[in-house]
């Protein structure tokens, strides 16, 4: 049997108040743009989360256990669902109750903590694991790091933390001639298995589905199923990893994305050798065919498939060094509000907004960037961080006195 593994990423950052200026430093300690966050979460809930969850539930019921999927939902998204539209949370709970859905572990704040602080990384992964248990009654055994950032050390660390499966990008620079359609063993690991994203088949849906300049447009479900079926004979697992917002948000409902997804399971299952499995199930049933050696971090972003969307220009590097440099002092305050405010600043999106890679061209980065320029993103971020630093220092001074 060849397992088709769906993993959907659900994430919403806590967006900062873009009007937070120099004069606010030391004066005002509310950093988030609640109106924008509410508006965006409600909009995406209407366009994506609610209809997509309904569809997944319908498919699970129709296929009576044969259609199985997985989600990774960040803590920042969960908190905003809870605050702005609890019905989204409720519909995820319903999905959890079917027994056909796996919830994947990650850093609660969708952070780059792994690259800067192993301690903070562990704390955030534990926070997220607890949230999964509280909300969905599942203790995650599969792990995905923020933006599928991955290297050998991460795999070893995650194995030690008790996870059995890890997800990452099937990046060309790592795989070379090899296919992502097998289970691999991360270098230096014994129990942990790696599932690699089949980026061609994933991105056909996530990115190219509505692209009218794509020769395959419009993509029929029969054609797509035939590509998946072509894996038969040269693979054991097909990993379709994508942002959940693909359904209804990145690809609007008018593109026919929901109809496509509604028809897909039966077309995949029409081939007797194919089944759906959650990542944890697929990895448990398959043996690794080879070692996966990734000495330098990879990710699923951009053409480079590395971390250059979040780090590498002076603004990103300065901001990251500064915010992670605050770790010890902010934790020492034992002030939950300060610590959450700090962790909200660790969310990788803030660094993504400062990316200058294709600033002049305008592209996917611009689409996801609420700021007019990366420099403006950096300035607002630093204003907020400078204020937070003052609060932490004030606490520290008060404690010492």
């Amino acid at each position, binding site marked *: 049997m060849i397992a088709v593994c769906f993993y959907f990423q659900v994430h919403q950052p806590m967006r900062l108040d873009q009007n937070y*200026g*120099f*004069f606010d*430093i*030391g*004066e005002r300690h509310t950093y988030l743009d609640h109106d924008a966050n509410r508006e965006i979460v409600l909009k995406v809930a209407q366009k994506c989360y609610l209809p997509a969850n309904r569809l997944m539930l319908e498919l699970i019921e129709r296929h009576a256990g044969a259609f199985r999927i997985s989600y990774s939902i960040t803590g920042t998204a969960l908190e905003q669902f809870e605050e702005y539209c609890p019905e989204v949370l409720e519909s995820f709970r319903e999905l959890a109750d079917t027994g056909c859905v796996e919830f994947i572990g990650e850093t609660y704040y969708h952070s780059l903590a792994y690259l800067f602080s192993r301690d903070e990384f562990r704390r955030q992964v534990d926070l997220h694991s607890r949230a999964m248990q509280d909300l969905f009654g599942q203790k995650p055994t599969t792990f995905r790091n923020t933006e599928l950032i991955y290297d050998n050390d991460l795999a070893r660390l995650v194995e030690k933390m008790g996870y059995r499966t890890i997800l990452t990008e099937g990046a060309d620079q790592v795989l070379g001639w090899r296919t992502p359609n097998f289970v691999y063993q991360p270098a230096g690991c014994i129990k942990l298995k790696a599932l690699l994203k089949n980026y061609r088949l994933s991105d056909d849906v996530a990115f190219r589905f509505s692209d009218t300049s794509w020769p395959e447009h419009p993509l029929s479900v029969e054609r797509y199923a035939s590509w998946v079926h072509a894996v038969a004979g040269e693979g054991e697992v097909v990993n379709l990893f994508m942002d959940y917002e693909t359904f209804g948000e990145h690809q609007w409902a008018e593109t026919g994305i929901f109809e496509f997804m509604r028809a897909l399971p039966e077309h995949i299952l029409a081939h007797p050798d194919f089944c759906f499995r959650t990542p944890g199930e697929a990895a448990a049933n398959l043996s690794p065919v080879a070692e996966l050696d990734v000495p330098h971090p990879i990710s699923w972003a951009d053409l480079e498939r590395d971390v250059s969307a979040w780090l590498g*220009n*002076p*603004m990103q*590097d*300065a*901001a990251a*060094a*500064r915010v992670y440099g605050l770790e010890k002092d902010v934790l020492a305050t034992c002030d939950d509000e300060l610590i959450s405010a700090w962790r909200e600043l660790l969310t990788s999106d803030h660094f993504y907004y400062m990316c*200058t890679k294709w600033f002049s061209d305008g592209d996917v980065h611009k689409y996801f960037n609420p700021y007019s*320029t990366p*420099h*403006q993103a*950096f*300035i607002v971020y*630093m*204003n907020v961080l*400078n204020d937070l*630093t*003052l609060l932490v220092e004030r606490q520290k001074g008060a404690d010492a006195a």
Partner: protein
Amino acid sequence: MRALMFGWEFPPHISGGLGTACQGITRGLAAQGVDVTFVLPRLDAEIGGADHLRLMGANRVRARVGVREIVELRERIRVLEVLSPLRPYLTDREYRSLLERDQHLTLEALVAEVNNDFSGGYGTNLMEEVLRYSIVAAYIADVEPHDVIHAHDWMTYPAGIEAKRVSGRPLVVHAHALEFDRSGEHVNQTVYDVERAGFEAADRIIAVSSFTKDTIVARYGIPPEKVRVVHNAVSKERRFGELRLTRALKEKIVLFLGRVTFQKGPDYFVEAAAKVLANRRDVRFVMAGSGDMFPRMVERMAELRLEDRFHFTGFLRGADVERLYAMSDLYVMPSVSEPFGITPLEAMVYNVPIIVSKQSGVAEVLDSAVKIDFWDVDRLADRIEEIISDPALAHELAERGAETLKNIKWEIAGERVLAVYRELVEEVHR
């Protein structure tokens, strides 16, 4: 004495340094009993908000202009035949894209545009607006009685020339900034040509500093006796100050406020900040303003890892500008080439000690201020440290500044401008 004045800015209608200076000069003239009619390219209300003069908008004047007038105008002002698109503060990239878009204006386009509204800014069609404005100026000069014509900066020089042709009254052109200040050695030839045509056609040139006068003489081939220096002044009204501002930040604040462009030397400020911050952490640097060097300055600051002590405010207006002056402990103007530079005087109004570059006109009126060469980052850093670490010195500098301010008044500038008018009017009668 009745002056017909042409200017591109007047508060609150685009208020850069030029607008502020025009307001001050006209106040000074009004105090001397001069009647001023000030023509802006665009005025949204029927009459402007100034009580000491009459504001007119060229957009509200319906001059009857035909093809013939425009053909004649283009022949008279030869330099304007090269109608390359331009804006005063254009970046290289913007400039190239504009060049590709509209290489030359056609006669038809100009005629069609004459009765359209003026945008009154520094838009992509600036040169076209400068031309249309001068046509309207000729009409106004015919119907508005006046004794002298006074044009501020190159955008209005063609208007001044036209007005003089129609009325025969003497023309004063006022140089607030020159193309050499804005662009260094890479001057825009068309702007330079318009400036020179203005200087040649004028009966007198007023320069805002000896620094500017020297450039006019050396770079535009104008005889020195034709140029008079009238220094700018500053309004002493303050909104903040007496009522003490509560300060949330305990560190000293060192301020740069101005356009973030080559001319203003923002890069020297950033580099000096890095040197000071390498020695001490009890100071914050603030850069207020925007401009084409802004992204580079932000990245450079981050590269130097100053982000916990260096802040950008972006472009600020009115009350925020004054609030920032009131918060500051030291003001730095490291301009590479500054015809005058009114901001140090504004800072002084708030009792803030200042450091100015020697390459600025304002340095001429500040005998006791701290002056540095803009390129001397080491010295700038030393002086910053010295002043912020020595309250007695800072106090003394602020006191001396207050003393100096007593003699810097728009009334005095007004008197000097009036003296120029009188000279010319007497020459005419002689």
